[in-house]
């Protein structure tokens, strides 16, 4: 799509000449450092050249230098919006390698953390998406502040649980590091009930609103074939008609014991993805309630807590573990050489594959649609660039 020696043609008012315009890596569409070189014909995007790598922080190299007990505290920096699932993925890969059992209570705690994190992540997605579409000063900002107000409540829950608000360090190989404090379960129930009520308000603010519908329906359609070809996952896949959810297809961490629906829409446009995520909100809350009600007693880890840096030694081998994060399939491929550190760690970032679809669906749309589409893809660049 790109190469050296690309010529830039000045905009001509004849309308049939092409303008090459740069969007990013810093721009107010608050999605992170992402650069798109757009070729425009008038208002329509004709070609997209996405450039990534601005947030590369050498996570995969860090994975080789940090041990199995150190890395989970860092893992949340990849998908920092859906941090719990990122950590979960790493420890699951390590446990798979070492054939380590995880006690039931820890599994339920992990599920609860992951689902609460899903709610928080979708709150952030909705807020930033509306802000992109509505403007930093306008109705979009109102949605943004409402969503963040709700997200703060979940972050307060996590703060009471782990002590931190974004980089939790909640998981460790063999279980979790923290147990729930006294009174937390009630607080969590209150929070999810409160958020469920507010969801109805968000939908009232957006659905039925013709402006919103016109800007999202029929925009950014990912066809079934394209979804399969490019390898998207998560709400993008489920918005295009595939009922594929890793929590159902390959249940991990006791997900098979929870009753929840997997929302699927067939339209494949931004509106379909929006509907999928809104329903995922409710399903996640449902799972949290079940986890809270059915939380078994017992230990939270099958291995003693971290006492020294070389505590966890995994046998030689390879393992690939994947989880269903708010963005899609997040996976870690670990190769162990029998020591306390992995020999190789590879992240399969959900946003990396999801973002690849942007180059296919953006051409043909107007510039104003580009932000709506990018928002509905919901990329987090920590995951894309690692």
């Amino acid at each position, binding site marked *: 799509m790109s190469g050296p020696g690309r010529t830039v043609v000045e905009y001509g008012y004849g309308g049939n000449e092409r303008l090459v315009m740069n969007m990013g890596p810093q721009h107010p569409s608050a999605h992170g450092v992402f650069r798109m070189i757009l070729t425009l014909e008038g208002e329509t995007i004709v070609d997209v050249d996405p450039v990534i790598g601005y947030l590369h922080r050498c996570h995969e190299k860090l994975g080789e230098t940090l041990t199995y*007990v*150190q890395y989970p505290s860092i893992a949340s920096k990849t998908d920092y919006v859906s941090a719990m699932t990122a950590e979960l993925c790493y420890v699951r890969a390590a446990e798979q390698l070492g054939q380590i059992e995880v006690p039931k209570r820890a599994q339920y705690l992990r599920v609860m953390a992951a689902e609460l994190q899903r709610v928080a992540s979708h709150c952030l997605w909705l807020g930033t998406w509306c802000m992109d579409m509505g403007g930093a000063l306008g109705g979009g900002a109102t949605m943004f502040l409402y969503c963040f107000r709700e997200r703060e409540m979940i972050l307060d829950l996590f*703060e009471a649980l782990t002590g931190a608000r974004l980089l939790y360090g909640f998981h460790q190989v063999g279980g979790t*590091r923290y147990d729930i404090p*006294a009174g937390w379960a009630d607080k969590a129930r209150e929070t999810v009930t409160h958020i469920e009520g507010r969801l109805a308000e968000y939908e009232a*603010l957006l659905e039925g609103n013709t402006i919103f519908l016109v800007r999202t329906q029929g925009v950014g359609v990912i066809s079934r074939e394209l979804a399969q070809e490019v390898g998207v996952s998560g709400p993008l896949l489920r918005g295009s008609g595939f009922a594929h959810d890793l929590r159902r297809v390959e249940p991990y961490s006791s997900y098979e014991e929870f009753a929840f629906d997997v929302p699927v829409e067939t339209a494949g446009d931004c509106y379909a993805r929006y509907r999928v995520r809104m329903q995922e909100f409710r399903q996640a809350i449902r799972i949290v309630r079940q986890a809270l009600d059915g939380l078994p007693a017992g230990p939270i880890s099958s291995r003693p807590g971290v006492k*020294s840096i070389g505590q966890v030694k995994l046998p030689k081998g390879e393992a690939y573990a994947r989880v269903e994060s708010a963005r899609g399939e997040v996976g870690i491929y670990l190769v162990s050489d029998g020591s306390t550190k992995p020999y190789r760690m590879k992240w399969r970032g959900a946003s990396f594959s999801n973002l690849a679809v942007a180059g296919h669906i953006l051409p043909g749309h107007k510039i104003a649609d580009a932000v709506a589409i990018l928002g509905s893809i919901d990329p987090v660049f920590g995951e894309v660039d690692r």
Partner: protein
Amino acid sequence: MPKPGVGTAFRMARAASAALAVTFRNLFRTPVTVHYPRVTRPYPDRFRGVLALTYDPETGEENCIGCRLCEFICPPQVIKVEMLKAEKRNYAKLFTLELYACEFCELCVQVCPTDAIIMLRTFDLAATDRRDLFLDKDRLHALGRQFPPSWATGTGLRAMQAPPARGGAKGEAAKDAAE
């Protein structure tokens, strides 16, 4: 674009008034702003704030034995310790912590065998010079005296995480720590 017509106009008007009603209702809710620094949020028990070194409450001695476990486990390697050997027990001759690079992951607290290093329930240590955030041993001890500590100590965390193993004793301890 939706087809023009009275039906569409009616639907649009209804949707518009629904949106306006949501924002209007919000006018009467208390704002969630916390007027920091005059008012501070109540920080939870386990808040992972600034680090500090502690003294033994009974003997008044420093808890740190200079074992360097925290130095080894720290992912960004911000802690530097030098052990001072003495007769009855060891001390830390040098203990520095680069707070500006600290990740606040609590791993150092987790591994400490004597509960010497802890985290405090405050984060507000703003400075204009980065060197003010290069905490040496005296500063760390002073901070420990100055601010309320967080719940987490090495033994507490390890007790919470302990597997059930032998009998139910450790498991019970874990449950008590969790309550």
